[in-house]
């Protein structure tokens, strides 16, 4: 008999983890975010980033973008556990669908005089950040980009007088013509 795929091997080695971005469509009703956040905390999963906003006002549907890290098995569990929540319509794993577009926006306040101030403005220009506010000794910049770009920008600002950071978390969408509801249903999904 061939070795079954379902056997668990006697090994303490942890399987590799991977970062996934999930798009979740939910009814925008009271408590829905608490349900989702509670599912993650109650079952011991991580949330790296969470972005929520109502996207279809007439239908009261919100889109939640969650970035999480886990083994393949954990990610599968997260998706099915999300899908069984009653107000959840649809869970789409954008990472599985292909390389998704991911952007986040950050606001960065820096304070400084002289060379540091000039350097801050020059770096902001290099990153394509917008200057939203300026005083004689401070700037507030806005940068939209991938998480990596935002991280790099914030790190550099740290050297030239970083005071404060505010980030939105990730908004994500798949590439190409297909909408997320047109994608093939994952196995066992409720398809509603």
């Amino acid at each position: 008999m061939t070795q079954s795929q379902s056997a668990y091997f006697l090994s303490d080695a942890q399987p590799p983890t991977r970062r996934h971005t999930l798009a979740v469509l939910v009814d925008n009703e009271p408590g829905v975010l608490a349900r989702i956040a509670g599912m993650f905390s109650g079952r011991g999963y991580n949330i790296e980033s969470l972005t929520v906003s109502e996207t279809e006002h007439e239908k009261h549907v919100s889109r939640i973008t969650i970035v999480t890290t886990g083994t393949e098995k954990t990610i599968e569990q997260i998706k099915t556990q999300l899908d069984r929540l009653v107000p959840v319509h649809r869970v789409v794993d954008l990472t599985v669908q292909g390389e998704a577009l991911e952007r986040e926006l950050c606001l960065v306040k820096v304070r400084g005089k002289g060379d540091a101030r000039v350097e801050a403005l020059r770096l902001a220009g290099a990153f394509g950040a917008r200057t939203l506010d300026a005083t004689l000794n401070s700037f507030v910049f806005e940068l939209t980009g991938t998480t990596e770009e935002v991280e790099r920008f914030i790190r550099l600002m740290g050297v030239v007088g970083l005071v404060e950071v505010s980030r939105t978390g990730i908004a994500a969408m798949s590439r190409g013509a297909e909408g997320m509801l047109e994608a093939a249903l994952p196995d066992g999904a409720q398809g509603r």
Partner: protein
Amino acid sequence: MSREMTGAEMVIQALIDQGVSTLFGYPGGAVLPIYDALFQQDSVKHVLVRHEQGAVHAAEGYARSSGKVGVVLVTSGPGATNAVTGLTDALLDSIPIVCFTGQVPTHLIGSDAFQEADTVGITRHCTKHNYLVKSIEDLPRVLHEAFYVAQNGRPGPVVIDIPKDIQFKSGKYEKPRDNQHKTYRPQIKGDLGKIKTAVEMIAKAKRPVFYTGGGVINSGPHAAALLRELVRATGYPITSTLMGLGAYPANDPQWLGMLGMHGTYEANLAMHGCDLMVNIGARFDDRITGRIDAFSPGSKKIHIDIDPSSINKNVKVDLGIVGDCAHVLEDMVRLWKDVAGEVDKPAQKAWWLQIDGWRARKSLAYRNATDVIKPQYALERLEALTQGRKRFITTEVGQHQMWAAQYLHFDEPNRWMTSGGLGTMGYGLPAAVGVQLAHPKDLVVCVAGEASVLMNMQEMSTAAQYRLPIKIFILNNEYMGMVRQWQELLHGGRYSESYSAALPDFVKLAEAYHAKGIRCDDPAKLDAAIMEMIDYPGPVIFDCLVAKEENCFPMIPSGKAHNEMILPDFEGDTGEIIDAKGKQLV
């Protein structure tokens, strides 16, 4: 068609429209308008419990024995928090419950008002879904939606929190519709291609075993009938979890008995040695799998479950089929006819020979005594003396529960009510109250331990009030028996706080509750005493004094695999069996 009525009247009207005839509850300030509406009608019978936890367990017993939704009505604050254990129990065992909780008026919410608790916050994690109704316009929809959500897909408890001002407000009531939720549509039919693959895998297997669970019971009597048809058509062995007992008749030769931590030797070794496992409506719980990395190492696994998140959660399977058991079984029975001819008959015969060898080990044998009642003997006698009756059994939690599962035989579904997932001591007595209300003419026995039964003993008052002839059969060993057994196996026999000291006189306690008390400590007199209990037309507490330090075997010790069971004739030092790693497990 819509009618103008108050929120409280809508609650009652919705119960009527949902076919509810019985609800379990306890009044309080925040539900007085609903109690007032109840007072003015005769369609719905209210059963007054003595503690809100008892209300939920009674509703669970009612639901599980009748296939209907169990309905609970409690007040705000402590009423709701007392219900939490029952709701969690119903969530883990997938029992359909609708629980109405009163709430302080909307303008007081968040002000730490008298008897205010964040009920939707507290019950979010122990319900399938919950609602706080803040407007009378939402109430009719939510009422019907709750019944829909509780019953459809994997069943579970649903809480509706209704502030007192909403109960007084007037609005338009709407009758229920078919699909009562705008988006929630669980998958009922299984994927036909996968079901076809499944029956082909069964036909090709040399040593398959069916492993079934509570999902078959939840799917209804039709599912149990189809399961019997399929299993008999294939000729292969079947075992079941604690929650699934009764779906397949225990008197059938293909039945291996229950599996898992206290399952039979043949069931567990069949699971360990099979080449194909067909899981129907069970969930690879840790009480079943034992050590997960040594769980049935050589088998392919098929898993049929209505809840997609159950598939590949604990054990990775080769074929997962999402769907309702009855629907999937119907397709399997039909498709089996096409592949039945491919069964390898010599392999099947060899598999049964191997299983018969394991059976010959007689893992449920025990050493009987003449001077003391062995708990196993007591249950064997209860089984023998109640055979042929329409009999419902509930249990508390512990050794007696496992012995009941081992020594009582269930030939029909919905006859066995026990707290499986949560393991709630105090479940059995109120559950028996609920079962008896659903089946007033039938025999309802709660197999109990002396420690567990005290946790909700106050419900004897409910039994007395409604003249419910429930029989509380206490296997009294003066210990929290399972705790004591684990202390013997894991903690050097240091019986820390597990002795049931200062027990009440159960006979006098029965009399105090207007019931009959019977005590027996002599094996020779046991039969007559059991018959006296059965024949008595009212509630009975039977104090069966049994051997104090009997262990519940067979047992898969913590951290061990199915093929490393402790059998009843184990003669060595039980303290040496479990290693350091196993001691950390529960």
